[in-house]
């Protein structure tokens, strides 16, 4: 990519409408490329286009967006897991934030899947940066990324036997005795 293309002049704060129009444009393109049924729950919280899709489609969609000559979603801003224990069958989720630097469009894609079968295709073949992000999601939530070159824990100790960011596990260290006080404890 030509670095000069990503040059962005300081621009005035954009009003509500241009963002809406831009998002509508992106959404139209997305439905044209991948079909209307692919995306559910499309909305724009605080101006950021958000759509939910399925794990079967996610790799295809992000690859398509990356290769798209118009939008050029070259940049994977971040990805993170999320856990909703009460959504039976869709307990775990992955949330991807994509960024097109040339057009300055951000896009948020979500997928949800059951906790019993937390298997998601990897994005490491598209973005180098996905490597550690996926390892982090595996470490925290136990999401298994098929095709990941080195899916091991990244932040926690190797012999940890649970995935601490899931809602059912406590944050506190279990070995503190000084915090069991009834009035001044946790």
């Amino acid at each position, binding site marked *: 990519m030509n670095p000069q293309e990503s040059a962005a002049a300081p621009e005035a704060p954009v009003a509500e409408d241009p963002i809406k129009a831009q998002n509508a444009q992106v959404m139209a393109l997305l439905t044209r490329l991948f079909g209307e049924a692919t995306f559910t729950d499309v909305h724009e919280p605080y101006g950021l286009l958000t759509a939910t899709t399925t794990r079967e489609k996610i790799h295809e969609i992000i690859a398509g967006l990356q290769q798209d000559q118009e939008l050029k979603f070259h940049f994977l801003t971040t990805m993170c897991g999320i856990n909703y224990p009460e959504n039976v069958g869709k307990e775990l989720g992955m949330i991807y934030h994509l960024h097109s630097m040339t057009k300055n469009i951000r896009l948020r894609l979500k997928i949800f899947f059951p906790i019993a079968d937390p298997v998601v295709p990897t994005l490491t073949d598209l973005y180098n940066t996905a490597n550690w992000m996926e390892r982090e999601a595996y470490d925290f939530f136990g999401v298994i990324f098929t095709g990941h070159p080195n899916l091991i824990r990244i932040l926690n*100790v190797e012999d940890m036997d649970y995935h601490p960011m899931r809602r059912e596990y406590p*944050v506190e260290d279990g070995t503190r005795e000084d915090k069991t006080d009834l009035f001044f404890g946790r």
Partner: protein
Amino acid sequence: MADNRVPEIKTVEAPEGVEGAGFFATSLEKVVGMARANSLWPLPFATSCCGIEFMATMGSHYDISRFGSERPSFSPRQADLLMVMGTIAKKMAPIVKQVYEQMAEPRWVLAMGACACSGGIFDSYSVLQGIDRIIPVDVYVPGCPPRPEQVLDGLMRVQDLARSESFRRRNAPEYQELLASYNIK
């Protein structure tokens, strides 16, 4: 240029002793204590935020070399003082212990900051709740992070320990018991 006063150089006071014409007698313990106290070589075990405050302490403004500790010894073999600065995660705990074990006697430990003292605000599954769970600590410096003045004060408390410590304390059964309770050696 106009100021041609001789700069006041502070030297360490001689320990108590008997003085006379051409001789000065004191106990060896006191002399060694004085020498040790004024040339503590710290091992800066800096892990996080407190390490930046230690850098400020080392810098020109606070100047830790006024206390004879300007030579950070990154090798535990030559260090007298282990300064643990910052959060010690459970993943890091065995390494702290190993570094402590590699240090030669006499050795002192200074826990700098709330995290090293007690885990601080990080009451979480991954953080060791105070380094005194794995190694004995001599001086605790509270604060999140402590100001450099506090760090220097902590260092002076270690100097007090070094100055007054008996030769044989490190061979004392209490000390051996303490180490044994931490399962060291």
